[in-house]
């Protein structure tokens, strides 16, 4: 299932035909590669190109929301060998937009990357694709072959004198490779253990060469930004939050899926587009930006608009735009237990606080969930997260800590109930039916 609904289709214009509309000729028919052609034929200067992207206030769609144009401008001009790298390692629980982008419109990513290569002076690029979506990787390889055959990739693209080639590299099951330097290590054929920064990839990236790394959606937006102009793109959203954004809505809604809406769209509108709450049940909580983002109670998020600033003000992060919706059938302790297990399982193992702390968190939450919690456990969890945050090479330790802290903060009484009564606040049978796996009344 692809796009469920959209208010302002841009990135998703090509998704209409689903699996039947991804190929080069479909993309060209939609005006694809026109921007690349324009950039090359007009010999647009690198500075002008980057300025246009800056104007759009496109912020990185991978989670951190760093302004893309600014990031590109960090690339040293003189370096002889540079790379652009696309981050399609989408492993953040709740996020599934990049897979669909790659399935339904891979050429928009390719065009975006070629233009980025031109802007930063790179002659080669790699797209790192999440291991679990191997079929998407294979399609992307096909799309690359098409682009190469049509002269969009390779030496002397469209006779412009600009050469750029692009390759696909697939992962094989490690969330940490979504972290940009873990990803680079992984392309280099090593474990995906993140690197200490600085130096940042713009100075010391792939194979030690200056590298620009962006999320799939970030690259896909580039042709559209050039098509409409940076300012028009910015104006689609709100100040400091340019353009449209893909939101992956999962969990207790009637129509889970991807939605493209302008930045600043009210959460309530997004929920409505997703068909509202499953079975009409009450909204309990939402994780607005992928599992690493702090959870927000239902009433708090109902007052938010979907953009970086509004969600940050509410105490969470827009992250990758993965909206995990939970209704009243959810036991928050069990939900947190699963998330904590994830970070424990996915810690790369190099930094002491993360390697040791993620397991500690999981075990304590697991204990509480299984009726062996102790009154002092909540303080302990807060102290352990405190000791993890900001003390590691990458942000995975923080990502493990945020859910724990926010779940306890907003649902403390539910945790206390669990510790005291050694069972869930929410009746297990109610929890069981919440998933919709069982037909009502079935065993």
């Amino acid at each position, binding site marked *: 299932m692809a796009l469920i609904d959209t208010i302002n289709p841009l990135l998703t214009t090509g998704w209409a035909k689903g699996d039947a509309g991804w190929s080069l000729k479909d993309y060209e028919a939609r005006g694809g590669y026109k921007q690349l052609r324009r950039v090359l034929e007009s010999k647009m200067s690198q500075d002008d190109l980057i300025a246009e992207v800056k104007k759009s206030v496109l912020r990185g769609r991978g989670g951190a929301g760093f302004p893309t144009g600014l990031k590109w401008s960090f690339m040293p001009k003189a370096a002889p060998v540079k790379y652009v790298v696309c981050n399609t390692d989408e492993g953040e629980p709740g996020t599934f937009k990049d897979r669909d982008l790659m399935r339904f419109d891979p050429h928009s990513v390719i065009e975006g990357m070629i233009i980025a290569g031109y802007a930063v002076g790179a002659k080669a690029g790699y797209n790192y694709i999440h291991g679990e979506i191997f079929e998407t990787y294979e399609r992307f390889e096909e799309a690359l072959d098409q682009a190469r055959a049509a002269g969009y990739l390779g030496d002397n693209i469209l006779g412009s004198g600009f050469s750029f080639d692009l390759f696909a590299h697939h992962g094989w099951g490690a969330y940490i490779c979504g972290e940009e330097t873990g990803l680079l290590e992984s392309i280099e054929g090593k474990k995906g253990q993140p690197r200490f920064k600085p130096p940042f990839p713009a100075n010391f990236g792939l194979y030690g060469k200056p590298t620009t790394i962006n999320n799939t959606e970030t690259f896909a937006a580039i042709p559209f930004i050039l098509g409409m102009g940076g300012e028009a793109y910015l104006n689609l959203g709100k100040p400091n939050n340019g353009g449209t954004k893909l939101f992956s809505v999962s969990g207790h809604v009637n129509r889970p899926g991807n939605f493209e809406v302008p930045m600043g769209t009210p959460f309530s509108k997004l929920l409505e587009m997703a068909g509202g709450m499953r079975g009409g049940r009450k909204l309990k909580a939402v994780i607005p930006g992928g599992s690493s983002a702090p959870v927000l109670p239902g009433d708090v998020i109902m007052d938010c608009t979907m953009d970086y600033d509004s969600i940050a003000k509410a105490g969470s992060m827009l992250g990758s735009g993965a909206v995990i919706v939970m209704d009243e059938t959810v036991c928050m302790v069990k939900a947190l237990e699963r998330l904590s297990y994830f970070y424990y399982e996915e810690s790369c193992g*190099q930094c*002491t606080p993360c390697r040791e702390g*993620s397991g500690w968190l999981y075990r304590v939450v697991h204990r509480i969930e299984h009726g062996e919690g102790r009154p002092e456990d909540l303080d302990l969890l807060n102290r352990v997260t405190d000791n993890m945050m900001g*003390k590691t090479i990458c942000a995975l330790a923080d990502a493990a800590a945020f859910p724990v802290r926010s779940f306890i903060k907003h649902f403390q009484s539910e945790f206390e109930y669990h510790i005291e009564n050694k069972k869930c606040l929410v009746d297990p049978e109610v929890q069981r039916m919440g998933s919709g796996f069982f037909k009502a009344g079935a065993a």
Partner: protein
Amino acid sequence: MVEIEIDGKTLQVEDGSTVIEAAHKLGTYIPHFCYHKKLSIAANCRMCLVQVEKAPKPMPACATIVTNGMKVFTHSDLAVKAQKAVMEFLLINHPLDCPICDQGGECQLQDLAVGYGESASKYEEEKRVVPDKDLGPLVSTDMTRCINCTRCIRFTAEIAGFMELGQSYRGERAEVMPFIGKTVDTELSGNIIDLCPVGALTSKPFRFAARTWELSRRKSVSPHDALGSNLIVQTKHDKVLRVLPLENDEINECWLSDKERFSYQGLSSSDRLTKPMVKQGGEWKEVDWNVALDYAAHALRDVAKTHGGAAIGGLLSPHSTVEELYLAQKLLRGLGSENVDFRLRQSDFSADGKRAGIPSLGMKIADISGLDRVLVVGSFLRKDHPLIAQRLRQSAKKGAQVSILHSANDDLLINLTARAIAAPSQLPALLAQVVKAVCALKGASADAALSALAVSAEAQAIAQSLASGSNTGVLLGNFAQQHPQAATLQALAGQLAKALGGKFGFLGEAANSVGGYAAKAVPGAGGLNAAAMIKDPRQAYVVLGAEPELDCADGAQALAALQKSAVTVVLTPFKSQAMLDYAAVLLPVAPFAETSGTFVNTEGRVQSFYAAAKSLGDARPAWKVLRVLGNLLALNGFEFNSSEDVRSEALGSQTEFVSGLDNGLSLGALNLSASAAGIERVTDVPIHFADALVRRAPALQRAADSAAPTARMNAAMLSRLGLAAGDLVKVGAGGTANASLVAQLDAGLPDGVVRVAAAHAATVALGPMSAVLSVEKA
């Protein structure tokens, strides 16, 4: 230079320095585990977190580069809180079994936990247990204690040159291990014991032998190769229980080879000779010292009287101290013999009398690291000089170009620029080609003897590399020194260095390869050298510290000569069956660690040391034994009160470096002709067989480097001889002698050679190290 402030103290440091380096300059200690100054930065333990002004988070001091005006606080609340947090995480899964841990008392985790740990951990979940690994006979594991600092891994990959250890799995299940079923086989493996900050990797031979606070410590010097690594010898109740590196950046840095670290085990070998012994009527008897000394003195005096002093030969181990060598030559000369030599594995002595001075490295050891172009000639470098190989490995990583010219192509784990591999007889011509090509590139005129030579592509590649540098060095290895045309190789290396405006010298084979010359333990006018006094058997021999059948260039001939002699007096720490066969008197002398003395290392550095332990049994320091012998023989000048007295006489005022080092040689016309018909022998002296002590160190003898000798050939040779790897072959020399060996494929060997190790009982019968052999299926 940038100026920074640490805890209120300002200092200037180099651009690009890290905070921890800057702190160390100030003498400020920042707790750390993964950081090690010789390894790449991992920044994974997070113990070194400090506060940096304006940084929102604590920063790892080991990885944070200083910037001008940076203010660092290592003891602020933020820093200490972060450090305590990390310490708690390190301890939650640690077994805290200090009372039964070998590292107890010298454990960085234990030390820091006292300062940074809370008294009771809040961790009440089940602790992780990690299965132990078999890393071989030298390193013992307790992997549950591992804190995943990855120092050991980085050591194997970066210093030893091959990633033998890694961290498998991830997260909490991350585990340090070798590849499944493999052990750690590098010749430098013991260093991971020192590097491991906890008790995960400990010394297998030392295991549970003592607690650190029970040990006495003495500085010493390694008795093996001529690097002269600095040691700390640790003893308990006068028994050496452990040897550790004493850091000296000029020499061994903070490393030791396994040979240097574990050979001490040989000190307590059951072969130790603990009582003087004399052979009477074909029967060996243990006797008192005075009886044995009398016997020896009489016997030697009798031979000198009857046959003249020249009937006596002195074969002295180059692993002996300066004092021992000096007194031994003095004794022999006192008896009227000029037949004295310590160069037992040398076969070409044509340079004698033509040298400008004592042959040595020709530069400082530390200078090797500064060379930008290096040619190693005739060396099994990794095994013969593990720490020199390590230096060149690091240089090559930093851009130096290292090339080799040799008769084998063992993996040096160095990123080599060029290599030329040829049969031993071809080496002089090959080196001459390099000289010729370099002269051409440099526009210098080459030796007339080279005019007819055609320069091969390999030689040209080496020349090109050398000629492109500004600080070149040519290093002659053991194989070059043992080569039958060693003098020619030396002369050519000299020409090469001259054309390049660079340096050249010898990688000394043994602890006193330079000291032996300084101690005058070489033949004087009319005297016989080591090879000659074997070839032309003497009536009597004095053997000091050597096992000639294993330590001489032609062991078989040495054995035959000794067996024929009327009197052989052996001063030795060990007895062997061979000695019992050929000797008349065995005098137990103290090996390294039980005597004071001096080694002059390959750069000419004089290093003296005291005994670390009392001599075993009735063994006595050899200098004392030689002094008494001198007295008994009523020779002049044997009144010494201490080994320092002997050193003063031997070396005079040369207390730091010996003088007279000069690799110059006036050989006359060069002879580059190669004459070898048949299968040439390529001979290595395996690292753990090179001297009497290491041969008797049990753990080392179980290491991968101690495998029994084989007959190694390249694929073409094997097929030409109708052999397959694994076949038993009969290797013969000179018609009669032969050895049964297993054929082994060694793709790096040139055609026309068979590689057979020396210094091993299995190959003694084959005679000279350089020879033509026959090989056939057994």
